[in-house]
């Protein structure tokens, strides 16, 4: 009996698979034919509830605002743009199911998101099989962009780019003894390995590498190891609360004054200073340069300032929303990037749009990074040079970084 049912189950699966392959191949022909589309559907997936809700909401706000403007202005290639949004709650299984739904039922032509790295990784294969050009405005995991994902393009600075930027800053500012700090989670291990690679690239040996278990109670040993290495700078690939604990331990063993700390964006959290104590002043993080204020200035460069005002007009000041402006900008840029590439290609055909993104990206007028660097070889858009050192706990308007002097 069991055997029989196993056979019938597998035959159902087989026929379903055939059915779906059939569908997607007919989709392909449909797409090729539609050089003058009636409607362009963009999928938007992110965590809009749960602990990463602010990311998904920010992406959606950016996407919605851009689409609203574009439709008011006549759409793309005279076609209206429709957005289909789904909340995956940062759950990879849900995310994958939604991606399948959006591709198969909603017939999305392009995708923005998912916002979180693990859901993005889970969904990527299906998007690639169906040749959906996907823009990742928020997910940072290094592995998401690789030759197996030829239709994925990333706007935000990936972990690898952030690591390189942190190392570059430390080397350029002539620190003598650089210590690398990361936790042992997947995220931390990824960060540690890319930081080490970048160190090698710049020909510098770290004075020490320190790892610890994420969310551990006691960070004194981490602080002691930084002190033992006589570090003058520590590069923190740590999450906010852990980073704060380390800073506090460093202060306790009287070493914080001999040290500067440069962290990646994961270190940022709203109450970092409260958690870390006075030592927080020694901490800087890398952030998108275009969205950070020059020392002494109260406005961003005109292009970005204008967008910022637009976001505020639409969604209110920072205290009226829990989302962050630069992330909304990244979502907003994702839609305009697609618009530009489709219009330049004159079609929604995935291959042609992809080609435009790879070869002509310097023509696109971006508003998140100051430019994107896509090429045939790399689909990482964010330039290392646009990551700047910013003050950790001193933000303007509650959300804009101030560049460190």
């Amino acid at each position, binding site marked *: 009996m069991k055997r029989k049912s196993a056979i019938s189950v597998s035959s159902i699966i087989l026929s379903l698979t055939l059915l779906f392959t059939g569908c997607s191949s007919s989709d392909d022909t449909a797409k090729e034919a539609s050089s003058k589309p009636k409607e362009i559907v963009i999928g938007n997936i992110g965590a809009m509830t749960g602990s990463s809700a602010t990311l998904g909401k920010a992406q959606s706000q950016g996407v919605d605002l851009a689409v609203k403007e574009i439709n008011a202005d006549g759409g793309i290639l005279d076609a209206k743009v429709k957005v289909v949004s789904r909340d995956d709650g940062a759950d990879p299984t849900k995310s994958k199911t939604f991606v399948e739904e959006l591709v198969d039922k909603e017939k999305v032509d392009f995708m923005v998101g998912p916002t979180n790295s693990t859901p993005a990784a889970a969904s990527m294969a299906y998007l690639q099989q169906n040749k959906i050009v996907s823009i990742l405005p928020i997910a940072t995991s290094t592995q998401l962009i690789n030759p197996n994902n030829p239709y994925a393009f990333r706007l935000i600075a990936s972990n690898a780019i952030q690591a390189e930027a942190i190392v570059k800053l430390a080397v350029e500012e002539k620190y003598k003894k650089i210590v690398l700090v990361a936790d042992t989670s997947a995220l931390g291990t990824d960060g540690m390995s890319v930081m080490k690679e970048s160190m090698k690239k710049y020909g510098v040996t770290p004075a020490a590498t320190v790892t610890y278990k994420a969310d551990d109670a*006691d960070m004194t040993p981490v602080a002691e190891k930084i002190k033992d290495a006589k570090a003058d700078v520590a590069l923190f690939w740590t999450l906010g609360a852990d980073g*704060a604990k380390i800073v506090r331990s460093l202060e306790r063993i009287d070493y914080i004054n001999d040290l500067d700390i440069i962290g990646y964006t994961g270190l940022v959290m709203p109450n970092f200073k409260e958690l870390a104590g006075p030592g927080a002043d020694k901490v800087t993080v890398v952030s998108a340069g275009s969205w950070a204020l020059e020392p002494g200035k109260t406005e961003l460069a005109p292009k970005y300032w204008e967008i910022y005002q637009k976001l505020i007009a639409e969604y209110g000041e920072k205290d009226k929303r829990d989302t962050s402006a630069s992330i909304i900008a990244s979502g907003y840029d994702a839609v305009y990037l697609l618009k530009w590439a489709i219009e330049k290609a004159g079609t929604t055909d995935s291959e042609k749009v992809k080609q435009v993104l790879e070869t002509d990206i310097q023509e696109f007028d971006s508003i998140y990074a100051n430019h994107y660097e896509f090429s045939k070889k790399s689909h990482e858009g964010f330039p290392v040079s646009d990551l700047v050192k910013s003050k950790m706990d001193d933000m303007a308007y509650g959300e804009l970084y101030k560049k460190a002097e």
Partner: protein
Amino acid sequence: MQEIVTALANGSIYALMALAIGIIYSTTQIINFAHGSVIMIGAMTSYWLLSIFHMNYFTAILLAVLINIILSMVIYKVSVEKLGDLTQNSSWIVTLFGAGIILDNTARILFGTEPKAYPFLFDGHVISIFGTKIMIHEMMMILVAVIIGVLYQIVIQKTNFGRAVRAVSFRPDTARIMGIRSNRIVLMCFAISGAVAAISGALIAPITFASYTMTYSVGIKAFAAALIGGLGNTKGAFIGGISLGLIEGIASMIVPGGLKDAISFLIMIIVIIVLPGGILSAKLFTKGELKTEKI
């Protein structure tokens, strides 16, 4: 030296947490899987009272203790007592896990996901002893743990209630024919366990920050310490807690930080295999004492 002091302080709190698990285990033979969550609730409610209502430390912790006592009694009433004979019915595993998950999610909704800076006792004042900086808070952690530990042993050895607890843990049915209401005693044990959990949560929260994830980051240590010391052995809980603190402290000095927990848990497993009754069951400690003919 610094590390050893910190390890001892953390170890004392692990000991308190293990004690609370042991109090319940000794009378019921069940492991309170919701205990991590109860510790977390103790920390979160006292933080909330401290920061929102600007209460003083003492009042805030006292109220958190009360809240935890009620909470633990509710947990007993809802997820344990209804099950009847616990030796016949292992549903408590599910109900207590479930209670923990409900508490964690409630805490996440009530208090948010962001870790909170929990104030140290005496404003984190540090004193220097032989060049080692010791926070008064850390000394208080050790002191409070020792006081509670000693107090508990006195209550358990010298009072009517304590005799009844030991009677219930040894022979629940015989205790009942003495006129002891075993359920009452177990309920009281849950209450005491909740109170101890609140204090341990409040004392460790300044170090770990107060957050709904304490259930896992801190709570798991409670179970490890309880197992090392011997489940249900309330003296062993102290040995277990302090050993776990020291093992962690020493391990993190000599191996990469990420391996620290692996080593602590490896030691825990070795202890369980070699000495199933916990460290105190080693021959070295039992001397000539009679073998317990546990029924």
